[in-house]
């Protein structure tokens, strides 16, 4: 049997037999080289209670080249692209070692959720949010966990959602912004989605709000 197949099969069996780590690996269209891994959000983090799925592709040169992994579940995290799910983690790149396994890599991803590295970000905007206003970041991360990963309701989202403006509110909270801020600029006659876009890009959150004056925002909105 081909060494790669033998190794992957053994890794899949190992994950199945291991009940304690709650890490699961499932086959996509019966090929052992395209898998979906999943794990639970680590406790004591905004990701707690969430169920995160990861797309896993085993390259031909595995295990001598790293597996390709990206999040299927949307995650609000400095080292994960909020758009594509791409992950910035050293062991998935140059620090890969052939002795690492699917399981150990998924555990590393889990611990990446515990300890973000905002200085080496994948998603610069999220990293900025993380650096400037931690509380607001965690609020948003929790909200994303709730919406996308089936986590428990975030305090903010659960409280205010009403039937009429739930859609627009979601957008605001999703971007980690304050509804009042968005409303303020929207009242000036700008498109709501544009306001959200600009405010997110300029990181109009927490302490940063005081640093950005309204003219700067309007200037950006007028572009």
């Amino acid at each position, binding site marked *: 049997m081909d*060494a790669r197949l033998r*190794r992957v099969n053994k890794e899949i069996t190992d994950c199945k037999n291991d009940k304690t780590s709650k890490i699961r690996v499932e086959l996509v269209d019966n090929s052992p080289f395209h898998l979906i891994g999943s794990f639970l959000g680590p406790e004591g983090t905004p990701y707690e209670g969430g169920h995160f799925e990861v797309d896993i592709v085993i390259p031909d040169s595995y295990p*001598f080249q790293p597996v390709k992994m990206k999040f299927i579940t949307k995650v609000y995290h400095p080292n994960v692209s909020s758009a594509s799910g791409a992950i910035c983690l050293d062991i998935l790149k140059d620090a890969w*070692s*052939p002795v690492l396994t699917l399981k150990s890599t998924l555990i590393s991803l889990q611990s990446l959720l515990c300890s973000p590295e905002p200085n080496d970000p994948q998603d610069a905007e999220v990293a900025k949010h993380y650096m400037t206003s931690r509380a607001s970041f965690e609020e948003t991360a929790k909200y994303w966990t709730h919406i996308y990963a089936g986590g428990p309701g975030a305090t903010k989202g659960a409280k205010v959602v009403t039937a009429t403006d739930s859609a627009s509110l979601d957008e605001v909270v999703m971007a980690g912004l304050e509804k009042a801020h968005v409303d303020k600029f929207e009242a000036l006659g700008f498109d709501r989605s544009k306001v959200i876009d600009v405010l997110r890009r300029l990181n109009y959150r927490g302490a940063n709000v005081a640093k950005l004056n309204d003219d700067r925002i309007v200037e950006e909105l007028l572009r």
Partner: protein
Amino acid sequence: MSSDYELSDNEYYDEDDDEMMYEDDDGSASEMDVDFKITPSAKPKSYEIEYESLTQPQVEKLITQDVEDISGIFGVEPDVASLLLRHFNWNKERLIEKYMDNATAVSVAAGLALPEKAEPSSSRSRSTGSSLGLGIRRATRRNTAEQPKSGKTKILERVSPPADDQPFVCPICFDDSQTKTLSLSCEHKFCSECWNTYVTSKIRTEAEHWITCMAEDCKLVATDEFVKSALKDDAKTFARFQELVVRQFVSCNKNLKYCPYPSCTHTVSCPAGASKSALTTIVPIVSCGANASHKFCFGCAIDADHRPVVCGVAKMWLQKCQDDSETANWIKSNTKECSKCQSTIEKNGGCNHMTCKKCKYEFCWVCMGPWTEHGTAWYSCNRYDEKASIDARDAQSRSRASLERYLHYYNRWANHEQSAKLSVELYAKTERKMEEMQITSDMTWIEVQFMKKAMDEVFKCRMTLKWTYAMAYYLAKNNQKELFEDNQRDLERAVEELSELIESSIDPESALALRQKVTDKTVYVQKRNEIMLEDTANGYLEERWNWNIAVDGFDEPAEIAI
């Protein structure tokens, strides 16, 4: 003239014989050229630079010298010395200093020894370099026939693994039937198959010359000997590995540069072009010696002969041509933006009453204000004379003038560039002509070579001319620039005349006369090209050239005059 213009066959494979003059190892090209030289003196020309072309074995010899030095000083195996040097990017002085300071720490950092843990036998690995935990440990069930090459290297061969009750399962491929295992002195054992694939993939896919142990977080690095044994009989991959080491050595040494042409393994040593400050006075164009077309600049990343322009200016020009900044410049001078929807609009005639196609906004092209404000004053914008709009128009015409100036130089540059690209076709055409000439007139194949020689010269001069336009674009306007442009004009005229001669139809009767004419012209063109290069090169040395823009290494331009 024609009598001393005898050419031998070999010559036509050298595109630039002058280049080869100063090479020791390229004897084939040097002597044959003498009869075709304008100045037979061996005095180096001011636009040429001294350099030496090295083959890979020659560079390997340099490496071996360094390795042997270090090996002798530290009393370590050559393999160890090589790794130490590679870790220190071949900086011998720094290595010696650091190693003398703390040999153990250096060895650990270089991946030659394990970091000390609470090991009882640690005193052994601490003592001297020669006992660095470096030996390859090999455990085989059968005694392999392979013998360690050097008696000093510690290769441990074991007849059987110490604990035979448990079969060895490779932690990577989970195969329990493998009988041969390899490990570095860290004792992280893996089967030889996995090592083989791993090392091959590191070398082939990642072009890595620094191969560490496969275990997670193990920094121990494999010696050349280990790499060789892991690769088994894959000599090709091992050769690639050695090439990678050579490449690292070359890239660490500023006097050396690797030939940038694909799959070329030659190196050029050019100490004169190595310092950044020298690049304001010389253009270090070198040829690697493997092939006459492998010409590149030692000072910058341009893979072509960019004489007479110095690296800094050449780079700026290429950047400018590549950037879409000029497109933007065009847009700036030819278009305006709709003040409502920001679409770019080019006015292609008609009156000043514009209606944006996209958002239907109506405005005045002159003042860009809404058309409604013009009231009944149709076609006479009352804001026309306002200072703001005058300024705007001035800015627009200035931008247009600079665009035109750029295009003047760019078109001429592109023209020579284009003709260089077409040269393949032209060479084929010339060849056909040469055959024809052989048939129609009494000339031998050797005698008709003057055509090819002329072609070569035209091609070479077009390259020079091409870069002179880049240079002229950046030269500040003064007498020097005028002299430069005179030389440029003379060269260009001569080149155009020669290419016309080459392309003219052949008449059997006048073939001999044509030959004479082409030969004379070729010599003249060659001379003009030399004058051009010589004069610019001397100009750099005499600091005669002033730029109209700030160039790295040169004085700031005093007053920008274009």
